[in-house]
């Protein structure tokens, strides 16, 4: 199968998944006992006619499937309705915070890959030695440490005791030195667990490759160990890394939801958590939907890169 045909096929497969993602996001709000209007009406008194108007405004007088289609129609043009609490447009609320979350996610992702891949390679090449053992234990610790606690401990040591970093973000634009410097701690916090997972995967996929025939062949014909590792083994084990890099995106979104809370980072995760205590459902719904769609797209891209790197898997 040619690459372009594979891409088309892969996109077609993601469409039902995307539809499912919208259904789950829509369905979550239906799970709430009672309907949203009843919920709003708990706090305010309105006349029965006004109540009817409210129902009509949110299409709640329509059957469920029609409500879903109407909602989908709005969502496709990024109209998520308005926040129950602030009354502002949900798309606006999200867009003002999105850049902060993306910056945090990108930094963490780079730290995860930048630390995880090299240590994984070193551990595989030097397997059985002290280096391997130390990095293995470090990775196990990195996975077992709850990221929010790691964040708290970093604040305790580096901000409170040593005063190197600020504990709350400076009031400055996102791309200023002060703010980027502040971003180091939260990114390291999320990146630690991410790097540990990547390191373990790179190590095991390298080890698998190292046992293969072509490696023995390359050594037998007298190639230097350096060439064997970098030209042959590494290239083949990088394929596994592409998938992990995509899986990491879900992992990093998870991390940022919690870590934004720890470091008071004004991103999407913080908005989401705040919206729960305020029961601001349009924002929760939009947040769930957007992360779902983002991950479907990330997986799609990863699969395409994967098949471009390794034509054997297109079948």
């Amino acid at each position, binding site marked *: 199968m040619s690459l372009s045909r594979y891409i088309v096929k892969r996109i077609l497969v993601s469409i039902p998944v995307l539809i499912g993602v919208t259904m789950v996001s829509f369905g979550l709000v239906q799970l709430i006992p009672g309907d949203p209007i009843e919920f709003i009406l708990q706090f305010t008194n309105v006349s029965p006619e006004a109540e009817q108007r409210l129902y009509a405004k949110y299409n709640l007088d329509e059957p469920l499937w029609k409500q879903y289609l109407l909602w989908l129609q709005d969502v496709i043009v990024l109209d998520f309705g308005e926040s129950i609490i602030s009354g502002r447009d949900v798309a606006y609320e999200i867009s003002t915070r999105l850049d902060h979350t993306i910056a945090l996610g990108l930094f963490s992702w780079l730290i995860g890959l930048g630390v995880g891949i090299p240590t994984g390679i070193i551990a595989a090449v030097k397997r059985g030695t002290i280096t391997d053992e130390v990095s293995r234990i470090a990775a196990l610790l990195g996975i077992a440490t*709850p990221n*929010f606690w790691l964040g708290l401990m970093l604040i305790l040591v580096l901000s409170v005791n040593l005063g190197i970093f600020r504990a709350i973000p400076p009031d400055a634009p996102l791309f200023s030195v002060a703010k980027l410097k502040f971003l180091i701690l939260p990114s390291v916090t999320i990146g630690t667990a991410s790097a540990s*997972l990547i390191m373990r995967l790179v190590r095991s996929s390298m080890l698998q490759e190292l046992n293969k025939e072509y490696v023995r062949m390359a050594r037998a014909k007298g190639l230097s160990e350096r060439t064997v590792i970098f030209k042959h083994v590494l290239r083949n084990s990088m394929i596994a890394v592409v998938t992990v890099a995509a899986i990491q995106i879900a992992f990093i979104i998870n991390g940022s939801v919690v870590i934004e*809370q720890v470091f008071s980072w004004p991103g999407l995760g913080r908005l989401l958590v705040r919206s729960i205590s305020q029961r601001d459902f349009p924002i*929760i719904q939009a947040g769930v939907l957007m992360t779902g769609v983002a991950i479907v797209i990330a997986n799609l891209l990863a699969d395409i890169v994967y098949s471009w790197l390794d034509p054997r898997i297109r079948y």
Partner: protein
Amino acid sequence: MRQKQRDTTTQRGRIRITGFDAERVRNRNPISDWSETESDGGTSRMEYAWRRFKSNRLAMLSVGVMALMTVVAVFARPISVDVAGMSLTVQPFALTPYGPGEMFVGSPNAAPSVEHLMGTDWSGRDLFSRVLVGTRYSLSIGLIATVLALFVGIPLGSIAGYFGGWIDEAIMRLVDVLYAFPFLVLAIGIIAALGQGFWNLILALTITGWISYARLIRGEVLSVKENEYVLAAKALGATDRSIIFRHVIPNAMAPVIVQATLSIGTVVLSAAALGFLGLGLTPGTPEWGTMLSSTRDTIAQGYWWVSVFPGLAIVVFVLAINLMGDGINDALDPQGDTATKQRMQ
């Protein structure tokens, strides 16, 4: 079941045997002195696995830690059951010096001392007692959510793998959809809709947990069902249900056991994260994550012990269970690294 098979009958499955006197076979003299119970069949796979596990010191240490934590969970506070209006004490011992919810047993925010090994929190509750009682929550949440996820994931995954076709498509598309959500975001949505509480937390963890087992066992079933013994069972007229539950699932379980052990750690971390966000158990519950949820400000005030100890407890717990999972993995699958990739998901 054993008994049923040993009954010599001509009415088994689709095969009908004629000219065969079941009565005679049962009463004849044994041809040899072989008997089913005496054969030991050499060392079983499980025994080999256990031997390998025993020689792994780190794994044995982690089993010890887990055993200790289980003891702590059971004996932290007395357990009593209310039966028909009467309170019946099942377990009278208390390892903790104070009740986890007792306020002002010491001065608020007191540093660790001999009376309060881990200090006290803002309302003067003894942190040592709270951390010990917290073992109960993490252990029970981890076990219950993992077992429930297995109960959903294994049947659905094996049905998808065994039957294939549209059933497979339907189940796997559902799995794909749920996979598209980062765990915390989906759990936040579920808890936002259903509210807080122990069982809602378990529900959120189960809904997000079963998908990885379904994927894993589907893949295993796809390869196991090609084996000849499955074909043989089919030829003998076994029903699909008995083939799946007696032949396919037992042979596909090894990676699932490894994954389940490792995911107890993930479940405990997730529950703690939700607790930290104030979405897990109700505030004030001595669950480790929940205990950490409002400690950010106390750090700035210099009360480090309030946030250090519950977090350390989580690290020790998750590290022990992961080492145990790694040990089981190495014992069951000595050559390969098959589980490493699955663990990533």
